[in-house]
């Protein structure tokens, strides 16, 4: 095996060369084909397997060598299904390099085999307690590399201790900090900083720069999640930053990088500060502003080195400082300085700097203080869009143009973006189209410009014009009568082109069908000419477009009675009335019938002009928001602009989940969804709109929860589409819930799915939920289906499980999330007791945390009978003649959970005069008192 003749191996192998490994690697490299490589690997795998299985115990060196070979094979992309045990054995070797290879193997090839994890954890535990810093670091690295939940469970408690212990070596502290960070990212619930918080924050003051560098990553992550607990880090970070910024380039010795003092740490400090608002303390703030100014000043100084590393490190800090300035958005002076600095970079010879400057300016454009300053660079940015050789830079330039656009420069920017679109890379065309469409709509002063722009979009990049875009132009034309004539004329002209995009035919068909009469006076666009023009495109179009055209034709019959016979003839032709496509055939048949039997009046009513659409958020905007990337920033900005009175309708508070918004496509045309006549009929059209605007109003998931605290049956949810009824019964710690889903419409719901999830803690140890019968994915119009859910309460809980319902109605996705009304009181067993017993137990539960109390205003009439009914519904026993004050109510019960029983007592004291209640709950468990009190306080 260890032949000498192999070529192409480095002469020196560092450390302990493993000769066999080098030979093997060399063999692989000499393989002429993939097959040869696989053959060689299989031979090696067989060899290793036999060594591992052999009777002769392997020495540590051989084991290490073979494990290392396996690792190499794995990294080449081949599967490895053995050797894990040998690697684990290496962990407990007494030779450092063997241990090290063992850990490397585990880190790269961790297996969720639980038996193995236990062994690995044991080895780690030994190394962590070895007090040998090198071994401790190896173990910490392994934990950080694997980062699994099992490891978090085993070590999340121990690592903070290592991190803050006085006698821990610096190198171990560094590893411990980052190891903890990794565990926090995977299992935040297991990393409890509590008592360590302040000591961890003070690591920012540590003398060792390496410790600070490692610790700050941890602190930043923790601050993002718990800003209040960590807020003392702000002043510490400012003073640390100030010391670095003001130090000479050689002060920090090895932490100076190409004459820049501690660039990594500086960036991280600036990043940490971005988790917080500007410091309130004037002195701290002053010091920070001074730092930021110094950083901006340094950018103007001549470079201390010509190396790119020097300028990169320096500019990394500068960009991070600018991010912080933008984040604060409160120092006009700094914002404008930042903008000027970025302006210089826009023309820098380094592509990287131009890219970053464009990107960073995008966010500056959204600040009121710097928007104007950004705008002054418009020519440079347009030039970048035209001349940059790298598509990613051009993309940034397009983003920036979009962000800096306002009423004053919209025409120029839209024109530039349109002309760029002609040569734009395919990968970014769709996004560009959306952006142009949005800008054109947002800043349209005269709508003929808007119509021209959209038609140009279709002409230039028709394939990338999504439905949202052309639906929107129709929506706007319908809503604005000042542009309808112009739109009709323009589409008519556009359709003259011998090859026009199908999207153009769609828009043309729709608009001429509605407003063709506005240009019919001109003999060049007489009704028949219009019809013939449209129909000349018909045979080239897809089914949905043909369907749309058929609707346009029937509208023509209404608009222009003189076209009736021509159009009827077309409808009557075999290619229509016997079309193999059901939708087209149905339309042809129905339209033909409608045109022959309906009176002119009826026709005029059915085929009346579309009524205006209710204004709401542009569907295009919703689409762009779904797209990721830095464009998202500018979309936020756009929304703000919109609220200030842009052309788009409000609705800025829409939540992040745009998928729950039914696609506005359906409400605009309803072509594919509804039956054909409905599509053209205005009354039906507007009904659809209403239905959807209702569905848009999502109930808050908790809205209905309150209603079910004291009752088990009722309607959980209802809108115009769907009703959800609920019946439930509970015994001991078990419950069964029946859900009834009713389709209130006459159209079927398809892909109907429901999922019950238990968020957070509920999932693992509080509530077991099983859904029984799986639902059919289809609910016919008017039908109801039933679902059964079994519930088991393991220990007490406060949150409620979530029920998510998804289905499609007429092509639009409906997405609904509700809280299931499972509350802790459902598991009450009433307990009858006499007055004496009650007060004795009341006294026994006298620890302060066992009691929860609320004083609140009455929300309903204080009717004794209603109160009694509600308290009974709560599930406790209502005890008569117990409280000396007959006005008061007292109750007793035991909550049954699998883990334990929780006795609870309740006292409700109404004060009719003040219209107030005082509610007191005492339980053997504090969380139960608290939760019951919260639930009940909303009931009276």
């Amino acid at each position, binding site marked *: 095996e260890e032949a000498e003749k192999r070529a*192409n191996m*480095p002469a020196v*192998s*560092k*450390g*302990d060369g493993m000769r066999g490994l080098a030979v093997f*690697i*060399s063999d692989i490299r000499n393989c002429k084909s993939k097959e040869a490589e696989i053959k060689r690997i299989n031979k090696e795998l067989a060899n290793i397997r036999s060594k591992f299985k052999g009777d002769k115990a392997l020495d540590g060196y051989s084991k290490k060598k073979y494990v*290392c070979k396996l690792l190499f094979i794995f*990294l080449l992309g081949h599967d490895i299904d053995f050797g894990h045990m040998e690697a684990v054995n290496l962990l407990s070797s*007494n*030779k*450092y*390099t063997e241990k*090290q*290879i063992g850990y*490397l193997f585990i880190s*790269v090839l961790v297996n969720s085999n639980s038996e193995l994890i236990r062994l690995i954890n044991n080895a780690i535990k030994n190394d962590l307690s070895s*007090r*040998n810093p*090198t071994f401790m*670091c190896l173990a*910490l690295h392994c934990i*950080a*590399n694997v*980062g699994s939940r099992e490891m978090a469970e085993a070590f999340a408690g121990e690592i903070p201790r290592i991190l803050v212990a006085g006698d821990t070596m610096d*190198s171990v502290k*560094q*590893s411990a900090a*980052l*190891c903890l*960070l*990794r565990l926090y*990212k*995977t299992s935040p619930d297991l990393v409890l900083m509590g008592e360590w918080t302040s000591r961890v924050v003070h690591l920012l003051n540590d003398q060792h*720069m*390496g410790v600070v*560098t490692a610790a700050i*990553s941890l602190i930043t992550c923790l601050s993002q999640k718990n800003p209040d607990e960590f807020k003392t880090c702000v002043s510490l970070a400012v003073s640390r930053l100030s010391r670095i910024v003001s130090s000479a380039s050689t002060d920090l010795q*090895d932490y100076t*990088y190409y004459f820049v003092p*501690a660039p*990594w*740490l500086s*960036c991280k400090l600036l*990043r940490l500060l971005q988790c917080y608002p500007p410091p309130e303390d004037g002195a701290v703030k002053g010091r920070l502003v001074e730092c930021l100014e110094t950083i901006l000043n340094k950018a103007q100084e001549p470079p201390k080195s010509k190396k790119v*590393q020097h300028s*990169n*490190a320096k*500019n*990394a800090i500068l*960009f991070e400082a600018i991010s912080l300035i933008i984040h604060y958005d409160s120092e006009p002076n700094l914002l404008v300085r930042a903008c000027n600095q970025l302006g210089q970079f826009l023309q820098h010879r380094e*592509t*990287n700097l*131009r890219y*970053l400057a464009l990107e960073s300016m995008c966010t500056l454009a959204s600040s009121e203080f710097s928007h104007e300053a950004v705008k002054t660079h418009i020519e440079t940015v347009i030039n970048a869009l035209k001349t940059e*050789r*790298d598509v*990613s830079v051009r993309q940034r330039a397009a983003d920036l143009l979009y962000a800096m656009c306002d009423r004053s420069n919209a025409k120029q920017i839209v024109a530039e973006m349109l002309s760029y679109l002609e040569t734009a890379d395919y990968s970014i065309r769709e996004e560009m189209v959306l952006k142009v469409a949005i800008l054109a709509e947002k800043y349209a002063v005269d709508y003929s410009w808007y119509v021209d722009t959209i038609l140009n979009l279709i002409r230039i990049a028709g394939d990338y014009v999504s439905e949202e875009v052309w639906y929107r132009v129709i929506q706007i034309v319908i809503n604005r009568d000042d542009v309808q004539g112009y739109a009709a004329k323009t589409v008519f002209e556009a359709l003259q082109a011998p090859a026009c995009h199908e999207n153009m035919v769609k828009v043309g068909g729709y608009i001429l069908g509605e407003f063709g009469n506005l240009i019919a006076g001109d003999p060049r666009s007489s009704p028949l000419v219009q019809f013939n023009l449209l129909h000349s495109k018909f045979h080239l179009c897809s089914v949905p477009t043909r369907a749309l055209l058929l609707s346009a034709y029937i509208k023509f019959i209404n608009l222009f009675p003189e076209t009736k016979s021509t159009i009827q003839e077309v409808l009557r032709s075999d290619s229509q009335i016997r079309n193999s496509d059901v939708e087209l055939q149905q339309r042809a048949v129905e339209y033909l019938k409608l045109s022959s039997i309906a009176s002119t009046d009826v026709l005029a009513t059915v085929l009346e002009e579309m009524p205006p659409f209710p204004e709401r958020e542009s569907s295009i905007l919703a689409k762009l928001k779904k797209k990721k990337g*830095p464009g998202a920033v500018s979309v936020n900005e756009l929304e703000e602009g919109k609220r200030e009175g842009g052309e788009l309708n409000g609705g800025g508070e829409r939540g992040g989940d745009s998928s729950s918004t039914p696609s506005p496509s359906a409400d605009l045309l309803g072509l594919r969804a509804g039956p054909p006549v409905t599509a053209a009929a205005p009354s039906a059209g507007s009904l659809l709109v209403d239905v959807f605007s209702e569905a848009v109003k999502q109930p808050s998931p908790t809205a209905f929860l309150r209603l079910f605290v004291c009752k088990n049956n009722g309607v959980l949810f209802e809108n115009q589409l769907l009703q959800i009824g609920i019946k439930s019964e509970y015994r001991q710690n078990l419950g069964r819930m029946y859900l009834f889903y009713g389709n209130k419409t006459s159209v079927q719901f398809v892909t109907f799915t429901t999922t019950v999830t238990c968020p957070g803690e509920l999932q693992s140890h509080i509530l077991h939920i099983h859904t029984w019968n799986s639902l059919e994915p289809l609910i016919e119009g008017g039908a109801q289906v039933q679902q059964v859910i079994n519930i088991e309460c393991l220990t007490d809980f406060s949150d409620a499980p979530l029920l998510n319902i998804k289905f499609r109605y007429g092509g639009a996705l409906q997405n609904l999330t509700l809280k299931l009304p499972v509350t802790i009181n459902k598991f009450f067993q009433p307990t009858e007791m006499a007055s004496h017993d009650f007060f004795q137990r009341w006294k026994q539960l006298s620890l302060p945390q066992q009691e929860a109390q609320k004083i609140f205003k009455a929300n309903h009439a204080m009717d004794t009978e209603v109160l009694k009914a509600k308290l009974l519904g709560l599930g406790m026993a209502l005890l008569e003649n117990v409280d000396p004050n007959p006005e008061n109510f007292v109750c007793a019960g035991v909550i049954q959970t699998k883990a334990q029983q929780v006795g609870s007592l309740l006292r409700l004291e109404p004060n009719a005069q003040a219209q107030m209640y005082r509610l007191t709950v005492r339980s053997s468990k504090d969380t139960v008192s608290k939760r019951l009190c919260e639930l009940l306080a909303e009931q009276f």
Partner: protein
Amino acid sequence: MRFMLLFSRQGKLRLQKWYTATAERDKKKMVRELMQVVLARKPKMCSFLEWRDLKIVYKRYASLYFCCAVEEQDNELITLEVIHRFVELLDKYFGSVCELDIIFNFEKAYFILDEFLMGGEIQDTSKKSVLKAIEQADLLQEVLIYCYIDQVDL
């Protein structure tokens, strides 16, 4: 940082380090896709690009591409210097490093990277500290643990 890849101009993966749990299948797919994207770029192009929901920062050193995937809020320029510092560390350790060193001593390359970055974050930026840790480890190679412990306890 989500992951770091080292690959050659010929599209051979030389080192991969993943800082978030990723299925092997996805890793292979991502590596393939990303190599294609990066190798298709011309010199003098910008060192940053958007890819999926990540930012990619890459730089070519001789025949090797160093490629890092970082998150939206991460600083691109400092990431470039993370790459450079890693290259310096390799260079210092191997003595003007070349691709072959990394191929034949891949385990050492991993050890050096681990000393420098942990969980995708910088552990220490000082060249001395990182190399000290590695060299100390090399010295320790064949030393028995109990000897070491004895020394410490003394």
